[in-house]
């Protein structure tokens, strides 16, 4: 195990470093140093086998190959599947899937006792029309056009003023889905939580019929049944008043079981359960 070159190499390195020589006036016997370094480098210890116990310890300490990556992939796959399942269920419940798919989902869900809209017909008790923005004003939960965009009193959703005018608010979405049931997570597809719920924003009640556009109407006190107490409830989000330009009427009427504020500045949607 000895490396006779090591000691010579050290001395050789030394010889090229004249600039740092502190011993110019000294004659060196490098042979002595080389012998010393040679002795130092002597590695003839025969007992360099790991003991079986220590070998086992070392092996146990080795991480399993690629375990973290596999775990990460597994988590990603499961997460993705859950998200897709949730999104698909939401879309199905909402009735916003393409008609054939919606019909199939309807059939399947019906078989297991779950009621989701059939793609060939509007959602049950859907309020509001499907023909444009601004429909679905609820008689029970009218907006307050003369008080646009007042920030909500946190926690008092029944008095929550609407957000700044939302053109196209107050009714039913273009697909006829009832507004006011989607939480913030789903600003566009309404009706996920309760297809029977009334329009959000300007048209909040379950019986609300979207016949007149309340587009741009700030919706305050849209629904007295709204869960109060949530500081986010109502149209208290002054930034949310723009509404969803793609949605009309109640499509933007949001709300959820929590009575949370909507992304579109609705007083809220309503879950009258």
């Amino acid at each position, binding site marked *: 195990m000895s490396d006779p070159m090591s000691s010579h190499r050290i001395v050789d390195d030394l010889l090229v470093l004249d600039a740092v020589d502190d011993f110019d006036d000294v004659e*060196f016997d490098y042979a*002595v*140093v080389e012998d010393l370094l040679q002795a*130092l*480098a002597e*590695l003839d*210890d025969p007992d360099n086998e790991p003991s079986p116990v220590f070998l086992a310890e070392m*092996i146990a*300490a*080795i991480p399993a190959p690629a375990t973290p990556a596999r775990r990460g992939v597994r988590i990603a796959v499961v997460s993705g599947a859950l998200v897709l399942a949730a999104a698909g269920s939401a879309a199905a419940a909402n009735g916003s899937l393409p008609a054939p798919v919606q019909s199939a989902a309807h059939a399947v869900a019906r078989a297991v006792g779950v009621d989701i809209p059939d793609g060939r017909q509007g959602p049950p008790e859907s309020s509001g029309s499907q023909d444009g923005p601004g429909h679905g004003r609820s008689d029970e939960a009218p907006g307050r056009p003369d008080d646009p965009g007042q920030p909500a009193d946190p926690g008092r959703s029944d008095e929550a003023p609407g957000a700044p005018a939302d053109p196209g608010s107050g009714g039913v979405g273009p697909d006829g889905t009832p507004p006011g049931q989607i939480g913030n997570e789903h600003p566009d597809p309404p009706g996920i939580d309760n297809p029977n719920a009334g329009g959000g924003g300007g048209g909040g009640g379950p019986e609300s019929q979207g016949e007149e556009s309340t587009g741009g109407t700030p919706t305050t006190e849209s629904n007295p049944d709204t869960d109060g107490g949530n500081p986010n409830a109502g149209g208290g989000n002054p930034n949310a008043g723009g509404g969803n330009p793609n949605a009309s009427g109640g499509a933007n009427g949001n709300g959820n079981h929590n009575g949370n504020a909507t992304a579109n500045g609705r007083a809220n949607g309503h879950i009258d359960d």
Partner: protein
Amino acid sequence: VGAADDFPGLLKAVRRGDPEAVARLYRDEQPRLLRVLQAEVGDAAEDVASQAWLEIMRAIDKFEGDARGFRSLLFTIARRRVNDHRRRRSRRPAAPTEPMELYVVHDAGPGVESEALSRVGADDAIEILQGILDPQDVEIMLLRVVADLPAEEVAEIVGLSPGAVRVRQHRAVKRLATALGRLPVASSNSVTPSGDRREA
């Protein structure tokens, strides 16, 4: 470097937990590691080496490099454990130690120093080094000579620049040559590595 020939293959096998590969890697590196650690921590060398091995095995899946890089990492880890050991030891009261008697050189005529040194074992050589050089120079010499690491990697390990390592190594060798060249040769006299003679 012992396992340099097929280090990638060896590393792959070690990562799989192949006992033979782990044992081979250990066989290749342990003697150098132990030699250096004996100089650093004496009787605790085995324990510190074991800690270093376990630590490097835990990180083996992240290691990328060749055999020399592996050795460098092993010594880097071992140095940390040495520091831990010294910290722990510094909290305990140390027993006073007597000045070291390195070896006795008998009057045998010219050239006796070299002849005597050629017979010293590695442990004696370490003691001579420690008697002549300051601890950091000892460490540098051990890493350069025993671990057979280039100045750049020694610099990484000890936290100096490569140039500083070369300078210290240079001076260490000259200091050794100076001290050993002045070794007095006297029958039955103990000689310390610094050249001081003490009556037996």
